[in-house]
């Protein structure tokens, strides 16, 4: 009898919240695992009269570490057809294939009337805010990895229960397609049956990918100095992290299982690179203004990344109105570049407005 082997390229991923199941096209390189936390008990005896000393050890499994998962998706906004099998909406509102992951990132992921908490979808665009993310726990979902899901043979399905999204990272690789790297944790991995997606609109569309080369950056500052900069990106990254930790009991005599997540400090940060340009209000002035601003302990820059272009569709906009920039560092290559690290901050320490996300479908 032939062995049944699985290839990562045949795998499918589904995300389930309540009775709603989203199909999530992921890139090659996804992973999931769960480790155990074990104690090693050793002896440390001195010698007896014959020079003997017992040197054995024992191992005890204390608990399961939270299951960890990661995968990458393309940023794929679309305007819903408003009807049909697997439709994301009953009106022509804008959505994104990966929007359920943003829902888990920014709030309780409560899904009602074709939208999530913190989402504003209309026929123009989809706006996502962190207004509901000042919570000790955020939304959870079950993530299913279906091995062999793209084929017709025997499938093996692993379910990670109670998953939270810990981090999302967008890299602006100029020659690539806008990609978001997601990672998070769940309570436990179990074998399950393959689910059937209920929402899968635009999953097979080829018109909703975003080209990074068209990305633009609008940057202006109020401190130090009030300047509107003219910067041309050559690369960059934005990382959003919930800094999750997991609770696990420590009872003796049982293998403790993780209870669930607790949020930490919300962090939005990243970097962008551009050529060193001596034009007025270009990158050379950015460096000069920051390094000479010794009386400013918190910079205030308004950064807006428009991935896919300032007005084209599809596109993804990341607006960060209060950014603290570090002094740019020079990168000495054939063409000299500047790399600038930034930290998107809320307008007040108890605020949630460090980042707003806008998807515009084609």
């Amino acid at each position, binding site marked *: 009898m032939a062995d049944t082997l699985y290839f990562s390229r045949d795998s499918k991923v589904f995300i389930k919240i309540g009775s709603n199941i989203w199909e999530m096209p992921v890139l090659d390189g996804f992973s999931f695992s769960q480790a155990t936390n074990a104690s090693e008990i050793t002896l440390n005896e001195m010698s007896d009269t014959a020079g003997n000393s017992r040197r054995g050890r*024992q191992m005890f499994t204390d608990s399961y570490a939270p299951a960890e998962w990661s995968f990458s998706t393309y940023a794929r906004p679309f305007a819903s057809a408003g009807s049909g099998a697997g439709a994301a909406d009953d009106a022509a509102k804008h959505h994104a294939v990966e929007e359920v992951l943003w829902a888990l990132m920014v709030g309780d992921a409560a899904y009602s009337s074709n939208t999530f908490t913190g989402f504003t979808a209309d026929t123009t665009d989809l706006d996502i805010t962190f207004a509901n993310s000042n919570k*000790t726990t955020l939304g959870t979902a079950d993530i299913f990895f279906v091995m062999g899901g793209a084929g017709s043979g025997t499938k093996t399905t692993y379910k990670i229960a109670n998953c939270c999204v810990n981090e999302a990272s967008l890299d602006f690789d100029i020659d690539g397609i806008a990609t978001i790297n997601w990672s998070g944790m769940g309570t436990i991995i179990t074998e399950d049956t393959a689910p059937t997606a209920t929402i899968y609109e635009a999953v097979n569309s080829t018109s909703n990918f975003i080209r990074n080369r068209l990305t633009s950056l609008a940057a202006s500052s109020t401190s130090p100095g009030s300047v509107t900069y003219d910067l041309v990106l050559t690369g960059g990254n934005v990382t959003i992290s919930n800094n999750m930790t997991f609770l696990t*009991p420590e009872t003796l005599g*049982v293998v403790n299982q993780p209870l669930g997540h*607790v949020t930490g400090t919300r962090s939005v940060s990243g970097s962008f690179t551009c050529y060193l340009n001596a034009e007025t209000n270009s990158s050379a002035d950015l460096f000069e203004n920051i390094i000479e601003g010794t009386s400013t302990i918190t910079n205030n820059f308004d950064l807006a990344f428009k991935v896919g272009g300032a007005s084209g569709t599809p596109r993804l906009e990341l607006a960060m109105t209060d950014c603290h920039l570090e002094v740019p560092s020079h990168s000495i290559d054939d063409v000299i570049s500047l790399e600038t690290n930034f930290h998107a901050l809320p307008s007040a320490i108890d605020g949630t407005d460090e980042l707003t996300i806008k998807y515009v479908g084609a």
Partner: protein
Amino acid sequence: MATYNILKQAEVYLVFNSSRYRLDVTSDLSFSQTFTDKTYPQKTLHDQSKMHDASSITKANPANFEFTVPALTESDLDVVFNLLVDYKSGTNTLNTFDLYIKLPNDVYKLETCVITNGTFLIEKLQDLKLTLAGEASKLTRGATLPTASTNPAVTVVNRSANRTHQRMDYLSVSVDSTPLTEGIYQVSVELQNDIEWTPYETVNDALSVTNAATSMYPSSFTLKKRILSGSIGQYVLSNFNSDTQQWKIGVPIVIKAGESATQGFQFNLTNCSFTNRNKVANVFTQAYDWKMNDNPADLGTKIKFNNI
């Protein structure tokens, strides 16, 4: 082949009122008992070579123990909470119990235990727990765990099918009838039962001491004082700064911590005092160090677990 006693394999049982309960404990379990060695000099005018003192060991000090139990939604571990909080019926003293620590090849027994300190662990990044420390009359090794066969008088209390650990999803704190609705970063509560063992060292008993088993052990105690106190840490906010560097007496303090308003620990204290101190950190904070001044007939009506 010799066997070893490994903490990871320990099982803890509590016997109270002829009922045996299996406790869930964490790895901070500890217990010990020491003996007092009263030395006396042997050196005399006639024998100057006896430089070393002789020993007289007749008395055992009270044993002590400490362990932490999780605050479960199920009532399985309520007995521990009740032994910390409740008076012995009709008295102003506390109930006693026996603890057994069972290992694969050995059983330790702590007799006549009393809980002297209970710390309610209310942490954002931990499940709700209760750390207990206490004293006992006697610690012995090689005991027999009471079972239906070894001691029919003891009833083995079965555990619930599930163990539901409680997260800190709900925290409500009010001081002087003002709900502290924002900026709380730390809450701690501690109940101390200050006991004193009745003197148990007598010349007559000392005469019959020949080994550890016949040594003089403490047997009874008096509850001298109880202290219920804690601390509430809050950021100094523009709308919560009127108590900073103030003190008050005769104020109510209400704390509810757990999965919900009715799950977890509830403290409804009517007559408390607090001193508030400002603390300089990256973000300025204030600490309410509070203490209950009330003398309720039943502390169990003021401190509840799972609203019971």
